[in-house]
């Protein structure tokens, strides 16, 4: 505890929020509502109110269970179709019951939510178990404006890299300005990670989720959970990054055969792993490529192309989607009748282990939104969005609602955070060490190396020991390259990419080693070498923690004695 100003700019806050996306802005506003005396600071790599991968760059759809829905029926569906007994059934119930509170919170804050002429949330006949509603895509700007009004401070263009710790408590974070390299030290009583999941920069919309918070929490000693279920895919046109929601019902093989009946149930709320296994099988057996027939997409699929959203004229969503679709038509559209489609890797490695208040395993640390969606054990054996479109945005808000009281209470009661000069010095040295290499490997090439061993279906859809080990070989090699070869060439944006690569390398190792550990097939975790669901040995959560510099995997008992549904 001495003069830390000599290392860089110092900020102090009662509540530090890493990430100014949807979850970050909601928790910031909630904390100020709960206790206006608390000093809340958001640190964001881009600009708070514009950042985050999905809130203002997708359909703005929210999954909600309203007053008319039956929580038990929903839970039964969820256990069988989503979690395959790996979900925390209590967490799913809490989430379901809290989702309507989020709608009301938004409406209180002046954010319009789609309701029908009777004031009810939108409902789709084919999806009887939950409501699907939406907001307009200027939501982030509204939340930012509210946060400013509430006195929330914001530090933008700052990449937070490491968490500061004192014993088993998180007491802040350090990072740097990606525009000019200024080193920044944040001291905080409570620290909330809301910086998204790791998506390996593979697909456009998810491009900003680079695992920063997940990897930083892991390096600080926090427990991760369910990392093996980090393999969400969509279907998309080859060469184009547009996801075709519901595309599983519009697929043909090269012989002109309509393939969904071979691999899909008659009705599915969203993609299942079987359609991706089926696409690969068709190709392996010589009936590829897989082709997309647009006219089929509306036949069985109620949420295809956001069909229900057409009922609501939204100014910002209209502008956004009309612009994107016009560009697609002009520049990238595949004009062939039945163009080729491929699995689009999304990822969603958000494995920070949290309790029902979104509290991590380190004192003073919470994780919200995508950063903890798998780690909360909400998702079970299906990666986010858990076959519930719109659950990502809802989760961002629900997790913020759940965390609010415990963050506010902790921050109000905690003493001044202890930070250590030697830890800050070491972090600073390590963060800027790539700058010492004037030339070297471009971090983009390293990211591509990772994508090559994470995103193809043979690594993340149909796994085997042999291929996981192949992937881990490259991942191990990348640790060395990150340490000794990768160079930002004196550019701070590129230094940011060096850290993104480092974080993604950590996430890759945790993902693949957890996947190697789970020796069974369950939900989206498919092992070619262990093709059966093994309830005797694997009805438990796999956890990961950094111990003495090494990844240590353990398992955690699932409290079935408290649950309604048992295998």
């Amino acid at each position: 505890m001495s003069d830390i100003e000599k290392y860089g700019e110092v900020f102090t806050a009662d509540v530090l929020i890493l990430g100014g996306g949807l979850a970050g802005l909601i928790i910031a506003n909630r904390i100020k509502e709960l206790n206006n005396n608390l000093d809340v600071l958001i640190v964001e790599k881009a600009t708070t109110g514009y950042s985050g991968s999905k809130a203002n760059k997708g359909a703005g759809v929210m999954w909600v269970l309203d007053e008319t829905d039956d929580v038990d029926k929903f839970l039964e569906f969820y256990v069988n179709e989503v979690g395959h007994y790996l979900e925390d059934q209590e967490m799913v119930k809490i989430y379901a019951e809290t989702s309507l509170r989020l709608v009301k919170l938004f409406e209180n804050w002046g954010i319009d939510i789609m309701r029908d002429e009777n004031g009810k949330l939108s409902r789709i006949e084919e999806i009887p178990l939950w409501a699907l509603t939406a907001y307009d895509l200027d939501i982030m700007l509204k939340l930012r404006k509210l946060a400013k009004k509430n006195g929330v401070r914001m530090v933008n263009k700052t990449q937070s890299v490491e968490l500061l710790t004192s014993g088993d408590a998180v007491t802040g974070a350090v990072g740097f300005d990606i525009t000019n390299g200024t080193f920044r030290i944040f001291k905080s009583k409570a620290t909330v990670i809301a910086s998204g999941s790791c998506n390996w920069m593979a697909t456009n919309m998810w491009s900003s989720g680079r695992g920063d918070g997940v990897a930083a929490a892991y390096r600080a000693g926090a427990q991760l959970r369910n990392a093996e279920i980090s393999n969400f895919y969509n279907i998309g046109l080859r060469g184009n990054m547009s996801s075709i929601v519901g595309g599983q019902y519009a697929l043909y093989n090269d012989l002109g055969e309509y393939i969904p009946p071979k691999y899909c149930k008659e009705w599915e709320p969203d993609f299942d792993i079987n359609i991706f296994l089926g696409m690969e099988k068709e190709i392996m057996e010589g009936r590829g490529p897989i082709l997309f027939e647009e006219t089929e997409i509306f036949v069985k699929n109620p949420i295809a192309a956001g069909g229900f959203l057409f009922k609501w004229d939204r100014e910002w969503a209209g502008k956004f989607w009309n612009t994107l679709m016009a560009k697609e038509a002009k520049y990238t559209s595949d004009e062939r009748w039945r163009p080729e489609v491929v699995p689009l890797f999304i990822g969603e490695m958000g494995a920070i282990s949290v309790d029902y208040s979104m509290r991590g395993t380190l004192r003073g640390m919470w994780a919200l939104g995508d950063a903890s969606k798998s780690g909360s054990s909400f998702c079970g054996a299906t990666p986010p969005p858990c076959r519930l479109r719109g659950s990502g945005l809802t989760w961002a808000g629900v997790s913020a609602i759940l965390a609010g009281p415990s963050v506010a209470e902790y921050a109000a009661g905690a003493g001044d955070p202890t930070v250590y000069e030697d830890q800050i010095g070491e972090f600073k040295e390590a963060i800027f060490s790539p700058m010492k290499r004037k030339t070297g490997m471009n971090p983009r090439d390293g990211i591509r190396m990772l994508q090559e061993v994470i995103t193809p279906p043979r690594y993340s859809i149909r796994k085997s020991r042999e291929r996981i080990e192949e992937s881990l070989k490259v991942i191990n090699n990348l640790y060395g390259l990150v340490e000794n070869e990768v160079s930002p060439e004196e550019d701070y944006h590129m230094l940011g990419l060096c850290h993104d690569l480092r974080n993604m390398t950590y996430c890759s190792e945790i993902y693949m080693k957890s996947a190697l550990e789970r020796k069974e097939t369950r939900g989206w975790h498919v092992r070619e070498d262990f093709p059966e669901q093994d309830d005797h040995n694997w009805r438990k959560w796999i956890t990961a923690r950094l111990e003495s510099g090494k990844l240590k995997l353990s398992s955690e008992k699932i409290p079935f004695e408290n649950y309604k549904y048992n295998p």
Partner: protein
Amino acid sequence: MGIHKILIDYEKCTGCKKCYRACYVDVIVWDAEAKRPVAKYPEECATCSWCELSCPEGAIQVIPVNPVSIPEPYPRSFYPKSYVEE
């Protein structure tokens, strides 16, 4: 294969900084001397077009490139011979 293009019309640009703030992946940087945005890192562009939508002057345009370079989902060695030869 190629990199997405971000075109800025400096005749129209008034330097309001909205596109710079709107970019969530640091493609657009701010030239403090010229007081104008520069699309310095198009490699990271996710073609979300929020910069374009945010510009009150219509001075910025994102042109996506197709095909985007992603790892081949099914490498040719994985395809049956009949398909590869085709």
